[in-house]
């Protein structure tokens, strides 16, 4: 019992309880299944808030630790080891926050095999939370790989026309990176005699040349997940084909697993290699920012546009992380949250309109603001947040990152920050282009087409508003008063930076 009642264990595995309940519900009772899933994820969110109340931001060590020996024979020393600190708490909260929102968004969008959908979705939540909490490399790897399985089903069963291709591509691409990481994990386990991350960090002393290879192996796994240019090609396919809730979680949380991996593992475990790689990562990140923005602008499909904008936004996060100073890393972590909120909201909104029109082609839309004023206004706020308008959340993150990148000794060249700043302007271009084409100007052909099928385009209903408003709340909160968010992570970030051997 003591094991099960650990707050972090409870937080990670509570959704399994919902899975068990759903397993015994008749598949035809769709609404009951939906409610069970929603309530489960809301309670999980409640647990995450409980964890927040117990969290002490000023303590840079792992907190609420649940640590038990798991496999300890024949030179193995694997532990069941969960812990939370300033680097992960916001991401854990984001996961628990986005899951109920995503479930709510599927209320009418998913009608087929609701039971299977909810089971996979809750399993996915277990995997994601586990990734952010695991402090033992073996345990981490299990959660990390496990998230692939439910996501693969979510894309493959409930996705768009090319769903099977997208699902397999997503799976193989991600697995290609993680198996290299597996070898590096095994090497570390042999080297340190333990898989515990804090112990390995404390041990240190990995020879520089080996450190470089291990760094590359971990980077392979995380860079594909982020995704960093030029490893991003799975992302548009997966995003476009995934059902709305899948896209929200994919953009909101799964991509963050990659960037989180860099913070949690690459920087502290391989500090010398990380410093050595910083200019290169900065270069790739900058290319990603510009490339993502340019490709976004060229898209005809609105979901694809949002997908490529992720490549650009995640480039900022990477730039911030490898600036390796407090501003850069804190900005990057905040930007992970911001991206989860803004892009999550964008995918939700695109999904809401898609549910009515069944098309995502930008050119058939137009003048929507007049017809659906609430939808249009919310879309405007979210778009502005995504392009980084001061006063909204995106600005705070990007500004802090650029501040960090300008002053970064690790990157050593302000050119990256200058070029990246252009990315902010380019974001305005593609986002406003999308907004203008879809919501302003003359009425698009889709409006009449939908009318011909008997029902005119409607504005958001109460459920959709309930789904989106919590996101808006945080978009404003972080934009206007980000201090509490920075306060949660600042000591941990300072501590991390202190460990890096910056020249």
């Amino acid at each position: 019992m003591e094991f099960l009642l650990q707050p972090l264990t409870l937080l990670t595995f509570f959704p399994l309880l919902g899975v068990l309940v759903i397993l015994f519900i008749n598949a035809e009772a769709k609404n009951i299944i939906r409610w069970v899933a929603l309530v489960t994820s809301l309670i999980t969110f409640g647990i995450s808030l409980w964890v927040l109340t117990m969290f002490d931001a000023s303590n840079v060590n792992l907190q609420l630790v649940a640590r038990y020996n798991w496999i300890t024979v024949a030179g193995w020393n694997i532990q069941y080891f969960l812990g939370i600190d300033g680097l992960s708490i916001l991401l854990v909260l984001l996961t628990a926050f986005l899951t109920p929102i995503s479930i709510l968004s599927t209320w009418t969008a998913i009608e087929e095999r609701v039971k299977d959908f909810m089971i996979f979705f809750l399993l996915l939540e277990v995997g994601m939370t586990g990734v952010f909490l695991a402090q033992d490399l073996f345990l981490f790897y299990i959660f990390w790989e496990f998230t692939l399985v439910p996501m693969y089903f979510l894309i493959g069963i409930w996705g768009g026309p090319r769903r099977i291709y997208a699902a397999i591509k997503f799976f193989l691409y991600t697995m290609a990176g993680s198996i290299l990481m597996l070898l590096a994990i095994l090497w570390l386990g042999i080297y340190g005699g333990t898989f515990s991350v804090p112990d390995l960090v404390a041990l240190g002393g990995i020879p520089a040349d080996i450190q470089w290879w291990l760094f590359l192996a971990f980077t392979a796994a995380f860079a594909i997940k982020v995704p960093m240019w030029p490893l991003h090609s799975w992302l548009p396919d997966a995003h476009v084909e995934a059902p709305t809730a899948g896209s929200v979680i994919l953009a909101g949380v799964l991509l963050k697993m990659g960037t989180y991996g860099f913070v949690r593992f690459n920087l502290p475990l391989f500090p010398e290699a990380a410093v050595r790689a910083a200019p290169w990562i900065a270069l790739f990140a900058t290319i990603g920012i510009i490339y993502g923005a340019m490709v976004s602008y060229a898209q005809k499909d609105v979901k694809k546009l949002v997908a490529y904008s992720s490549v650009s936004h995640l480039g900022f996060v990477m730039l911030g992380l490898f600036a390796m100073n407090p501003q850069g890393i804190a900005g990057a972590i905040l930007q992970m949250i911001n991206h989860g909120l803004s892009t999550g909201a964008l995918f939700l909104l695109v999904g809401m309109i898609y549910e009515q029109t069944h098309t995502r082609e930008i050119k058939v839309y137009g003048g929507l603001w007049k017809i659906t004023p609430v939808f249009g206004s919310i879309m405007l706020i979210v778009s502005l947040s995504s392009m980084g308008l001061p006063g909204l959340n995106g600005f705070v993150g990007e500004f802090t990152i650029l501040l960090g990148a300008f002053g970064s000794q690790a990157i050593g060249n302000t050119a990256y920050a200058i070029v990246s700043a252009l990315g902010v302007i380019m974001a305005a271009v593609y986002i406003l282009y999308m907004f203008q084409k879809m919501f302003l100007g003359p009425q698009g052909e889709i409006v009449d087409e939908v009318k011909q099928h008997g029902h005119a385009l409607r504005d958001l209903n109460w459920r959709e508003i309930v789904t989106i408003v919590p996101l808006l709340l945080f978009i404003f909160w972080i934009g206007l008063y980000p201090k509490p968010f920075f306060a949660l992570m600042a000591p941990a970030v300072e501590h991390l930076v202190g460990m890096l051997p910056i020249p």
Partner: protein
Amino acid sequence: MNLTPQDYQVLTPYILLTTWASVLLLVDLFIPKERKSLTALLAALGLAVTLGFTLSQIGIEQTGFYSMVVLDGFSTFVNALLLLSGILGVALAHGYIKRMGIERGEYYTLLLFSVSGMMLMAQATDLIVVFIALELLSIPLYVLAAFARPQISSEEAGMKYFLLGAFATGFVVYGTALVFGATGSTNLYAILASASNGTSNLLLTIGAALVLVGFGFKVAAVPFHMWTPDVYQGAPTAVTAFMASGAKIAGFAALLRVFATAFPTLAVDMTDILWALAALTMILGNLIAISQTDIKRMLAYSSIAHAGYILMAFVPYGDPAVRDVSIAAGLFYLVAYAFTNFGAWGVVIALEKKEEKGLAIADYAGLGRKHPALAAAMTVFMLSLVGLPPTLGLVGKFYLFRAVIAAGFTGLAIIGVLTSLISAYYYLRVVVTMYMKDGEPSAERETWLGLTTALTAIITVVVSLVPQSLFAWASEAVLKLF
């Protein structure tokens, strides 16, 4: 000749099972045709009793019959696994051979004899005994492969397996003769003693290499794998399931014992050969599996590929620092493979129809909707074969790759993980077909089949979460081997 009761104690499980099989052969004559389930039950009972006896011998270390056989932790571990495979083999066969119209009592007797041959193989410490055991395990399997006669593919399978198997046995015998010529003995300990006396001996090396070729056939390692797809496809599926686990376990057990006990001095030469064999087997097995459209053929190539993974554990057998861990990892992987393999073949059996229908991967379309439990079980097995959580396959690979890296063969480990990635593609295709394509599959509902599939699926998941005791047992099993 002075034989003490201790000599017999060493072989008690083997004697028990052989006697049981011989008696069952007679008893079966009096069991009417429509009540052959009784034979199945008796066969399973015999295996279970022997299993119980084997488990009671845990911890006993003893040699017998003038050091021709041995009872040790290793043989007990392998024998327990073999007997379990036998029980699962009977459970899978029971409904299947009835449904396919090939139910004859000999089936179970042959299976029992084959298991006893495998057990003797795990205990043999003399190349002559190895040879006898090899024949005893193989000949019933040749017959079983052709059990669905007059179905042409089954006859072909039996014939092919027999011809190539005989050829392989020939290699073992020839190798044994050369080893005898080089060292003057067929006893593994005597061979080691003679070989350690210094002078490098070309004859011994060639002899050992020939023995390796013979076992390479048995465990289906590339380039000795040619028979595998045809035999696995043509043989009755229940036989294939048993063959894929049992013959592989026994082959690896013998390979391991012979090489670890008799040929550690040859490790310098053998390591490179084993390295190449393992790499080739993993690469080719996984690559060819991609293009298969028949589930039996696909699983056959998958079985070849897994032989490659297990071979990895043998590569460092001459390195005292890591060989224990590495061979324990091999044993653990054999267990993981056996459970997963039986489960996967169980699902194949559930979907197979008469006249070799229902065996295309395309026939699995819609299974996720129509038979959710069966599809979920198959998903578990496919994930385990890829090596993904939460399954034994992942823990097995983790253990195995760790041993390989610890031994310094990082290149081989990289080949191993990259081929796993390739394998994800074709295993996932089964999952894609089951869940993401529409179809109207129909599956048999048989009690024993259902139980076997469910049990193996549950074990595959649950043991992966609490593998501690299995790890411990596997590591203890190899301690006295060297």
